[in-house]
């Protein structure tokens, strides 16, 4: 098995762990963390294809991962601010009870 396939299997596993967490947990913070895991799995794929891909370019994969990490950080900040806003509104962060957008 080539290293590229090992890396792809690793990122598939990480993606699915994050997917299971995001789908099964009812805590909003854990759902956000599951989404972060899936983003990390995508970044692993970028690096794996950059390093072991058939047409290695100079630094395209690395640049892409840097931008991806920046966007993921912005997403985490906004998501957790939303969680705090939901908590202030309904006194808990269970997603089953967060069924209204109206304040």
């Amino acid at each position, binding site marked *: 098995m080539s290293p590229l396939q090992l890396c792809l299997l690793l990122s598939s596993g990480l993606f699915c762990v994050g997917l299971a967490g995001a789908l099964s947990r009812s*805590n909003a913070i854990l759902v956000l963390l599951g989404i972060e895991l899936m983003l990390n799995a995508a970044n692993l794929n970028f690096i794996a294809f950059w390093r072991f891909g058939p047409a*290695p370019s100079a630094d395209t994969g690395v640049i892409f991962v840097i931008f991806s990490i920046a966007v993921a950080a912005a997403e985490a900040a906004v998501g957790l*601010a939303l969680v705090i806003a939901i908590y202030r509104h309904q006194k808990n962060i269970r997603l089953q009870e967060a069924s209204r957008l109206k304040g």
Partner: protein
Amino acid sequence: MSFLLVIIALVILASAAVAMSLRNLIHSALLLVANWLGVAAFYLWAGAEFVAFAQVLIYVGAVSMIVLFAMLLTRRARADAAGGADSGGRTVAALLASGAVAGTLAFAALQTHLPAAASPAPPATVRDLGASLMGPHAAALVIVGMILTVALLGAVILAATERNPPEDDAP
């Protein structure tokens, strides 16, 4: 070389799986710090040193702190700090769905013919990255800066708006 990759993969997958299944939120966050460190180790293994250090700085340093603060700010005094009982049916459905996705992805990764690299990727030094960020990707860099600024302002507005000033259990 592959042996090291297997160890890193075990650390990443085990910490992620345990973090997603624990009841204690704080333990989940700390295990996710281990997970992000494992991802940074993978980047180091793959030769992307700058991304590894960026991962440590951003995820292990910043995102974990935000997550921990959000957990502490939204924690209830009662015993349901773990977010209440998750329904068993939903957990089973989520495991089935993610298992199906995992099977599909693993099958695709194993069956696809991936041509081997003709030559290993040239090392991307920090100087090259900086020249690339400031040269061909300068517009994208400016846009990312705008996104981060707008996201920061939005997060502050979302989290700091005080609707009922006399809040008895303000965090």
